[in-house]
């Protein structure tokens, strides 16, 4: 849904989203990367299993929740990418 204006000028990093390796720019949020992905959504709701994607990008809607490096229910709009970060889209209710 979104595309970058320029290439990263500080050396690109790569992160993994559900197994897919994607390029990212240091400093940008994980949610920003999700919005560029071919499947731009973050989670399925626990109540009805509806797809949700980032909506507010500033931490007040909680629709961008995904699993980041093993930790579930992370607000991806508030987390900056790190090289090798592993993101998993969250399907419905949390697993423990």
């Amino acid at each position, binding site marked *: 849904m979104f595309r970058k204006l320029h290439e990263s000028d500080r050396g690109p990093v790569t992160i993994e989203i559900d197994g897919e390796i994607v390029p990212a720019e240091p400093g940008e949020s994980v949610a920003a990367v999700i919005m560029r992905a071919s499947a731009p959504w973050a989670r399925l709701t*626990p*109540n009805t299993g509806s797809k949700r994607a980032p909506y507010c990008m500033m931490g007040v809607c909680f629709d961008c929740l995904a699993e980041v490096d093993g*930790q*579930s*229910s992370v607000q991806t709009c508030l987390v900056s990418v790190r090289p090798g970060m592993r993101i998993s889209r969250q399907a*419905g*209710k*949390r*697993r*423990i």
Partner: protein
Amino acid sequence: MNADVIVIGAGTVGAAIGYGLAGRGERVLVLDGGDRDVRAANANFGLVWLHGKGMDMPAYYFLTRNSVDAWQGFAEELAETTAIDLQYEHDGGLVLCLGEADFEERRSSLLRLHNQLEDSSDPDWEMLDDGAVRALLPGIELGREVSGASLGRRDGHANPLRLLASLQAGIVRKGGSLRGGSTVHSVEAQAGGGFTVGFGSEKLSAARVVIAAGIGSTALARQVGLDVPIRPQRGQILVTEKVMPVLPLPTLDVRQTREGSIMIGATHEEVGLDCSTTSEAAAVLSASALRQFPGLRDVSLVRQWAGLRILTPDGFPIYAESETHPGAFVALCHSGVTLAAFHAGILADCIAGGQLSEELHVFHHRRFDVPKAA
């Protein structure tokens, strides 16, 4: 008279009584307070529980057992009347024990209680070792300290907020009236009989009045000659994000709701009417839950709330009719969910009939009067 009965308070107790009365054809008006009034009904854990109750007061055990046995039918009728599913499950309830001493203490306490009952039927509980507990809870890791549990066969849980919504809707469906934002400030006996109830600048009258206003009952009850010794006790509860089903049975302090969130309760604090939540309680409750179920450590807390239990000196309910003001009743307890079937059933029957039955006299608050020294 504007109504046969005015019930003051539309919390779990008042709404259940009102629903029961409406269902018996009484013209009932239930008056509820304001949006920010203290409401224990909004802070209930949701257990429908029997085992372990009634120590030193067997009558309470039997009262509770009757209510628990009637709960399924009560929930079904409510669902039929209001199309609200109470999510009632009663496959048993556990009280986990940590360490051997805890296990022994639990067992002997339950035995003592059972002996007091002088009841010939089998106990409604059994002790399970940790292996048996694990077999019952396969989807979740048990803490290392868990030595076993007591399992109450009749115990279960329901959704307390749905219960309240359903009771309130049920009152109206059965022909009763419910008015919110109507905090009652006065109850007066009328000369020819009956009572006038004042709220805001309005007054309404009824032949009988039931005070079920929770912690707000003291002043009102006094106006009709009922001096009820109740005090507030704060209980804080934690609620997590929604989790895959991992806990099929409720325990006394950790249960998983149908929606998936896990509730963790509760503190017992004597802080007057303070309903604020504290970080200390969050820490203590989390630590306690993790001792039982360490696998929950990465689950997020989404809500924390506090409610005020209505506590009597022995912790058991007060059901009383005023002697100076016949026709005025008071109903106070802190187990409003478990006793909802009783309140909507037998208790509503008594109030409709104009007097409390013999078996309920033991719940009068005169049991708290200290006999004067000779």
